[in-house]
């Protein structure tokens, strides 16, 4: 590079950013723009094949969507399901992180390895394995629990519960490992002082660890919300595309089914836009909290 002697030619950072920005603009920003655009057009099979010209519909697609009772039902299910997943994941992850600090090396290693295994399992294979574990005919879970041939995917809530188990199983390791790393970074004097003062495990967590881990807990919470809100693979595979009579639909699967199963690309895009806006709101709240804590990006 000829600019070796110049410390900071003005365009150097942009040169480094160029490949990243090119990829992101072409394959992220532009598709998002397209998503928004399609949601304002009439776009069905006829337009895709070029049989009919596309026409601008204004907010008609959104009016159709918001007038559909199913949309609100799916939205509510998505929010509640994501909330349940986030809470369970955080609870399990944090509890096990604290447990890890209380045991010797060997049990810790075993738990870490098991968690890494669950973490590494691809969503699609994790889903198939959990469905098989809970299979009414051949699965071991129903045998052990004495549930006979109870079908987990038949009822709406039991199907959601089954998916929740899989989601917690594959996402608690991220929380556990991150929070554990955070606890290890707390100066040991602080924890010793708490122990000498006779604080119970719960008290130590609530009054000492949790406040010091606040930034880390915030990050894992936000990450979990984002991941669990846009769950797709687990629902799609475990409930066979949204459950019996579409009872287990969440927004992401709903959008996909609208677009690719019934060729209503505009409605699918409109659902995508709604999801995007909700997740954007979550991210902005996150940024506000981070900023208020006065952290520099």
């Amino acid at each position, binding site marked *: 590079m000829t600019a070796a002697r110049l410390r900071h030619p003005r365009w150097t*950072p942009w040169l480094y950013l160029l490949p*990243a920005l090119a990829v992101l603009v072409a394959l992220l920003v532009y*598709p998002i723009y397209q998503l928004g655009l399609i949601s304002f057009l009439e776009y069905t099979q006829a337009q895709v094949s070029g049989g009919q010209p596309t026409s601008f519909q204004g907010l008609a697609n959104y009016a159709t969507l918001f007038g559909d009772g199913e949309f609100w039902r799916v939205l509510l299910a998505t929010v509640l399901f994501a909330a349940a997943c986030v809470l369970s994941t955080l609870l399990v992850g944090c509890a096990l992180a604290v*447990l890890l600090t209380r045991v010797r090396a060997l049990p810790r290693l*075993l738990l870490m390895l*098991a968690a890494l295994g669950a973490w590494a399992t691809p969503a699609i294979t994790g889903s198939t394995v959990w469905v098989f574990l809970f299979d009414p005919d051949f699965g071991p879970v129903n045998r052990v629990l004495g549930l006979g041939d109870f079908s987990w995917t038949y009822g709406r809530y039991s199907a959601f519960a089954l998916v929740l188990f899989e989601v917690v199983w594959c996402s608690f390791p991220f929380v556990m*490992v991150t929070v554990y790393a955070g606890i290890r970074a707390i100066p040991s004097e602080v924890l010793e002082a708490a122990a000498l003062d006779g604080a119970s495990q719960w008290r130590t967590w609530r009054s000492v660890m949790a406040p010091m881990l606040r930034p*880390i807990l915030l990050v894992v919470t936000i990450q979990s919300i984002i991941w669990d809100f846009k769950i797709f693979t687990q629902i799609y595979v475990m409930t066979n595309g949204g459950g019996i009579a579409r009872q287990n639909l969440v927004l992401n699967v709903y959008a996909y089914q609208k677009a690719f199963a019934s060729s209503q690309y505009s409605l699918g895009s409109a659902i995508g836009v709604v999801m995007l806006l909700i997740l954007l709101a979550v991210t902005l709240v996150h940024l506000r909290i981070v900023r208020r804590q006065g952290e520099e990006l």
Partner: protein
Amino acid sequence: MSPPGTFHMRSPRARRLRIRRPGRLAAEAAAVLIAALVAFPLYWMVLSAFKPAGEIQSTEPRPWTLDPSLDAFRRVFAQQDFGRYFLNSLLVAGTVVVASALIAFLAAVAVTRFRFRFRTTLLIMFLVAQMVPVEALTIPLFFLMRDFGQLNTLGSLILPHLAFSLPFAIWMLRGFVKAVPEALEEQAAIDGASRARFLWRILFPLVFPGLAATSVFSFISTWNDFLFAKSFLISDVSQSTLPMALLVFFKPDENDWGGIMAASTVMTVPVLVFFVLVQRRLVSGLGGAVKD
């Protein structure tokens, strides 16, 4: 070399003042029990893959098998073009990992080592980009790929996954690049090293552990993909990837569980290997990414 303040789960610093309590034994028993529970689904997957057909369709499933068989794996590998699916998956994931590591490295250097206008805006954009629901973009991406004649090619999987893994990769690498002291750069400049030389010969090797940790995420998200494969590789089966080979065993009348578990095992093993290879870096990487 790893950045300062990292944690290695295998060699924990000795906590001298671990207060001994009778509760510790109970805690350790609980930890071992939970580890077994967490590992059980994976154990069951591998076990079922090796069970003979009669045992897997048994209504009294046993947690062991006395005559393991390779039949299920034979069914998986006997599928037409299975090897090809595997190579396709590997090729797509490999390309994304290498490309995103290089591109993210350059971008991370730009946002940590320079002060320039819109730097903070860019960082926020990278953060915001992480929350984009990939699946929702299947619709516009489908049309984009069609318009550029990329449908039924591996490029239609590589390009979107590259884009989706970049924001997180940049965000995570930032911590690793930051951890390399600026003084090193000044020293290199004084010694007459060019910027490019410093970048690739000094900084790159130092940040490599971080790259390894970051690449797990791009590898997994790409390796796991079945939605794009399902949507973009509509007619040309020779371009298909592994998840398609797995879904074949789901049949409307009766699922071939042996085949499903064997295919799942084949699909899970490469990720596990990758994870084990980088697991130590992973923890320190998350520590670094979360701390600052």
